[in-house]
Every structure is written in C-alpha cells, then in structure tokens.
C-alpha cells in the first residue's frame, strides 16, 4: 500500500536541495523510500538541482587543481567504515537511511521505548525511534517545536485519520492529538524534532495518565 499522508512540497524541495536540517531530512527520506509519488517529486527537484548546477557561474579552480585531482584518484580510496549495526530487536531502517547509528534503547513506560538515532551530520536536532505497544492509547498532547514523524511499522490513528507504514506526519504546537496504536501489533515511528524539550515532553505525555492527570 502506498502512503496517504505526504510531506509538503516545500519539505521535499528543501530535502532535495540539501537545505533541510539533517534529522528532518532523514524522516522525509524514510517516507520517500516508500512513496513513488514523492520519489518522483524529489526526483523533479534533484533534476532541477542538476540543471541549476549545469548553469551555475563557474568559479575558477586554482592552478594545478586538475593535477592534484589526478594524483588523488591514483591513491587508494580510504576503507569504508563498517556499516551501521542494527542490533537484534531493532526495526531495520528503510533504504536511504544510510550512515545512522542507533543508540541505546530507553524504556519510557510500559510498552513504550525510545531509541535515539544519531545522523552522521552535525545537528542539534533530536532524532529517535519511538516504539509503542499494540492497542496503546497516548494521552492527549501537543508537540514542542516542529516535529516530523514517519511510520515504519504498524499503524496508529488519531482524530485526523489513520497512519500506516510510510505515512508522514508534521506536528507543531498547534496540533493536539491522542494517538491510538492499532491492536494487531506495535507501532514504530521515526521522528525528528528541533525542540530540545522533546524528551521531557515525551516522557511527560506518557506519564501523564500514570500520574493521574
């Protein structure tokens, strides 16, 4: 099934142009990997990037640049680093999510774990895998900052609709929802946020009911 919830055209364009913050780009790419429509859209913007590169005003290279490049191609390529290890029990990351490292899984509440994801790009965003058990209901909450989410496995619903693997969700302070995970299995999402408060927010939103709020 192809996704029904897509990133905006602006997000796809800035992802293709390389101007989107890396964590957010990771989430957009997770969607694009499963969505032929957005893949074509991203392809359009990459073609535009190529065409703009072709017509870019050349900045002359310094003297001897070609000779240095010719010398560089004679040297053996540095050995590629070992591929990112995905420990057992972790969901496999979709195509395109190269170069990410999975951190230690943290238990947040019964049935809920968070695994931080480190992108290879420097960024102050928080990127994480959120795993929520089958049939769980998260309390009503809003999101600190701007948060992007892509469903990797399972599904959940909120008042706006149902989200299946590949579906993309953008949330911010203005969105308040109470997601319900489908009964037939846990839901795993990849999420990126620009807010440093997210962990507190996340823990808070899950512990709210336990605290009787």
């Amino acid at each position, binding site marked *: 099934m192809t996704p029904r919830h897509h990133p905006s055209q602006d997000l796809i364009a800035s992802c293709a142009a*390389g101007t989107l913050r890396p964590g957010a780009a990771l989430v957009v790419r997770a969607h694009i990997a499963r969505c032929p429509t957005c*893949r074509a859209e991203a392809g359009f913007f990459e073609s*535009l990037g190529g*065409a703009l590169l072709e017509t*870019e005003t050349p900045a002359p*290279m310094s003297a001897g640049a*070609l000779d240095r490049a010719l010398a560089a191609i004679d040297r053996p390529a*540095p050995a590629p680093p070992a591929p990112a290890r995905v420990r057992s029990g972790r969901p496999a990351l979709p195509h395109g999510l190269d170069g990410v490292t999975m951190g230690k899984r943290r238990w947040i509440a019964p049935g809920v774990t968070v695994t931080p994801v480190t992108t290879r790009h420097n960024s102050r965003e928080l990127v994480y895998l959120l795993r929520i058990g089958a049939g769980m209901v998260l309390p009503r909450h809003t999101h600190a900052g701007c948060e992007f989410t892509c469903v990797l496995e399972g599904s959940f619903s909120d008042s706006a609709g149902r989200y299946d693997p590949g579906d993309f969700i953008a949330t911010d302070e203005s969105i308040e929802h109470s997601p319900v995970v489908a009964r037939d299995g846990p839901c795993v999402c990849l999420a990126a946020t620009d807010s440093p408060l997210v962990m507190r927010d996340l823990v808070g939103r899950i512990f709210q009911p336990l605290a009787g709020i």
Partner: protein
Amino acid sequence: MASDPNDGAPRIDGMHGATAQFAGIGPESVESLRSVSRRVPTGSPADGLILAIAQRRDREAFAALFEHFAPRVKGYLIRLGVPAAQAEELAQDALVAVWRKAELFDPARASASTWIFRIARNLRLDAGRRDRTAAAFEPDLSDAPDPPETPEATALTRQREERVRRALAELTPDQVKVLRLSFFQDCPHSEIAETLGLPLGTVKSRIRLALARLRAELEGEA
C-alpha cells in the same frame, strides 16, 4: 592550468562562461566528444565521460569532466556560503568521488549533472563531520540508484531531466535567478527580495511563475 596532460583528449571545452546556454553543450564540444560518444553510446557527453570512467578508468574522460564540473561545483558551494578555500577542496573531493563511485552511475536514472549535484550536496552536508575525508569516499546510498522502478518510471525519469532543462531554458534570467536563490539558499522570500532589490510580492510571484512553468512543461506530456 600549469601543465595540462590532456591535450587532445576529449573534453567539454567551450562551456566555460556559457552559463546562459542551457545544458551548455555547444556544437564544437559535441564534435570534440564524438570519439568518446562513439565508444560509449549515451544521451549526453558528460554521461559518456562518467561511463568511460566506470568501464575503463579513463583518465582523459576524468580530466574533461573535472574541467567542466569542478568550477561549477565550486561556484554552487560558494553560493551556499561555503568559504572559497573550502569550496575548492569540496569541489576536488566531489570530482574524486565521481571517479570512485562511477560504477554507481546509471544514465537511465539521472543525468551526469544531477548525479554530480547529489554527490556535491551530500559532501557539503557531511562537511561538518570530524571524519570528513572518510565521508567523501564511503559508499553513500543516496548517490546510488533508488530501488528498482518499473520500466515506465525509469523512462519517465530521463524524460523529466530533459524537460526540466528545456523548461529552465525558457525562463527569463530573472526567473532563473529567483529560482536559484530560493532553491539553493533556502532564503526566506524577504531575503531574496532584498538581495535582488525587488518588492517581496514580485519575488513571490516570480518563484510561483517559474515553478508553474517548469511543472506545466513536465505535465504537458504526461
């Protein structure tokens, strides 16, 4: 160039400074590349150069590709705000990466300039890493072809490339300018307006118009 070991080699000459000319490949350069094209059947001369590298590590092809693309990659990086010295270094890295990754290039999926754009874009994103040199050479899935598509999708990909080029060539220089600024620099429209000394409304409508024309061109034949 102090010493050019590639005299007489196939190269994409006559392209420097030809920024207004779309795809930039003039008749003379096509002629001078004919020898390469004959050996490597392909859509565009630059595609043939990358294939020549992939198939037989052709250093002359690399030199021609370098002369054409390195200054453009450098110009693109400077546009993004990368300091000139670092832009030069990254442009070097990008072209060396083209040599090392040439086998991953699939002309059915992307033109040479789109593929090199992706490599340069990813290198720039990696530039903040501590192990930047490794980053330049490690296999990067985002440079590799996407998962297999239907033959129809692949055919459309290449058509799209051609149409984007044609459509861009149709735009006025002003439209290309705002498109370039909004695409690469991710400038808020207000900053673009300031840079170009144009009213904000004009900038917005030019970006809209430019994108609409590109899209119309793309969808016209769908």
